[in-house]
């Protein structure tokens, strides 16, 4: 378990804006993903936990040990924290072979024991045949496995990963996801991972922590964060929603009914607790929950006529982009039936509507 409260300020410099990190969180076992745009303080948080950066204030607790505590002046050096760290560029020592990289990390133990552990890790991460090569002589996938093995060989109490696999192609990334899930299953320790893509949160995260501008804005299992973003900023960060400013024109808790006005059209939805009639709120709806079809003489209930700008085929579906930043996702089959439409209406199923 890791429990952290970290405050760190940077004064604005001639070429950089000031920045203040202020986060507090607690994560148990499993994989927790720090998610946020670049410059939100994800890596800084990781570095503070690893001991590379000294916070101005706060306390960092790993299991029952205090790694850092500002008031009492406790500040363990990175060497004493026993946090495995996998760097974005893997940081395998270029002048050592893969075997030597692992041996370097195991140097605390007696010779025979070290030899045994290095061999064990080489085997476990399928590196035995590359053991004698230097990092620049192996592929990205092998570097990835080696950096993971190196971080784990000293039995750390926590594994930190800073955007591993960034810029790698999909196949190697998928391999990495598999590797990390294997590590989670085989090694009993919390894993904290920095990611910039929502896909990684869903692939790997038991828990996700959303950071924005140095603040923790939401946390929880990825599914629940994606289904219930805390506010419109989080929804924007997740990047999976249509977001429109609307006005609530009717609210009825008895009938579980509400009506919002978007672009002069009324849409009905479920009752929105905690809102008042006349509130200006954000309507939040996922593209795949919407439906688009040909426009009849008169739009039906919960339908809004829309002007198609373009359609984009994605591996899973077809994205239709309409005027007003309205995006709809249709399956390929559904789109094939519709593709000769001249004029379109977009249907908003009442149960899909959510306001923030």
């Amino acid at each position, binding site marked *: 378990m890791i429990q952290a409260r970290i405050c760190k300020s940077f004064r604005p410099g001639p070429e950089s804006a000031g920045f203040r990190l202020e986060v507090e969180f607690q994560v148990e076992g499993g994989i927790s993903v720090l998610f946020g745009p670049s410059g939100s303080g994800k890596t800084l948080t990781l570095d503070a936990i*690893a*001991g*590379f950066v000294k916070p101005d204030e706060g306390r960092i607790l790993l299991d029952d040990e205090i790694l850092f505590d500002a008031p009492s002046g406790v500040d363990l*050096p*990175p*060497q004493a*924290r*026993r*946090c*495995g*760290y996998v*760097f*974005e*560029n893997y*940081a395998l*020592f*270029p*002048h050592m072979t893969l075997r030597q990289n692992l041996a*370097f*990390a195991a*140097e*605390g133990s007696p010779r025979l024991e070290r030899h045994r552990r290095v061999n064990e890790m080489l085997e476990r991460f399928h590196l035995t045949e590359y053991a004698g090569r230097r990092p*620049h002589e192996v592929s990205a996938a092998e570097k990835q496995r080696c950096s993971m093995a*190196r*971080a784990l060989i*000293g039995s750390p109490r926590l594994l930190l990963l800073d955007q591993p696999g960034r810029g790698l192609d999909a196949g190697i990334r998928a391999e990495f996801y598999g590797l990390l899930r294997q590590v989670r299953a085989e090694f009993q320790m919390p894993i904290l991972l920095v990611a910039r893509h929502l896909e990684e949160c869903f692939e790997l995260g038991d828990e996700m922590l959303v950071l924005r501008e140095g603040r923790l804005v939401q946390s929880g299992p990825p599914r629940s964060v994606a289904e219930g973003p805390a506010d419109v900023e989080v929804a924007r960060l997740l990047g999976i929603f249509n977001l429109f400013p609307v006005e609530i024109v009717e609210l009825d808790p008895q009938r579980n009914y509400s009506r919002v006005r978007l672009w002069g059209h009324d849409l009905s939805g479920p009752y929105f607790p905690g809102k008042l009639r006349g509130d200006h709120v954000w309507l939040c709806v996922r593209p795949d929950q919407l439906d688009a079809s040909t426009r009849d003489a008169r739009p039906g209930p919960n339908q809004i006529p829309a002007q198609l700008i373009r359609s984009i085929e994605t591996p899973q579906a077809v994205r239709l982009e309409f005027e007003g930043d309205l995006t709809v996702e249709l399956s390929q089959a559904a789109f094939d039936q519709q593709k000769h439409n001249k004029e379109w209406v977009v249907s908003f199923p009442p149960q899909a509507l959510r306001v923030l």
Partner: protein
Amino acid sequence: MAIDWFPLWLSLKVAAIATGLSLLVGLWLVYLMANRNFRGKGVLSGAVTLPLVLPPTVLGYYLLVLVGRESPLGGFYERVFGSPLVFTWQGAVVAAMLQAIPLLVISARAALASVEGSYERAARSLGASNWRVFWRVSLPLARRSILAAAWLAFARSLGDFGITLIIAGHIPGRTQTLGGAVYEAVEGSNGGLARALVLVISVLAAGILWGANRLVPRQESG
């Protein structure tokens, strides 16, 4: 004309020993300045580079005060090794080191600063002590630049004149190095000898420079 090559061999010996010792002392200083916080760190860092800007004769004077026969340090040396440091070739080594250490420290600091920070962080997170990070990771990654700096320090030591003159004198056959030999040849209007020695020094220096340039890495962290 028979040329006495003793000054050349002495210079090479002095420069080689001085460079070796300077590497040890210089790298230790670099390590201290990079990893330890102590009072007077700023002063030390300034003092290390001061020899680069002081006139050699001034440095020689300081050194004479510091290790002369009457000084505690000079006395200590004499008791341990049985002979004084001044006016011996060992004195010339100390003189050369005074020139070589600043060069090495400045280059080594720059070379180490350019080592990608994540390697050192990785090493520390793996439990390696600062000392081990320095020797096993930082230094090997910066080795080419540091070796190039050592070459330059060697060349600098080879040609030292001012400090050597004051601390070791230029006693022919005992402490006369190349610089001193050239000086004496010119003073004594021995044009042929002066030209021969100047040519040797120039060729040596050019060769060393060429070697050092080849060492400077195009891409250190591959």
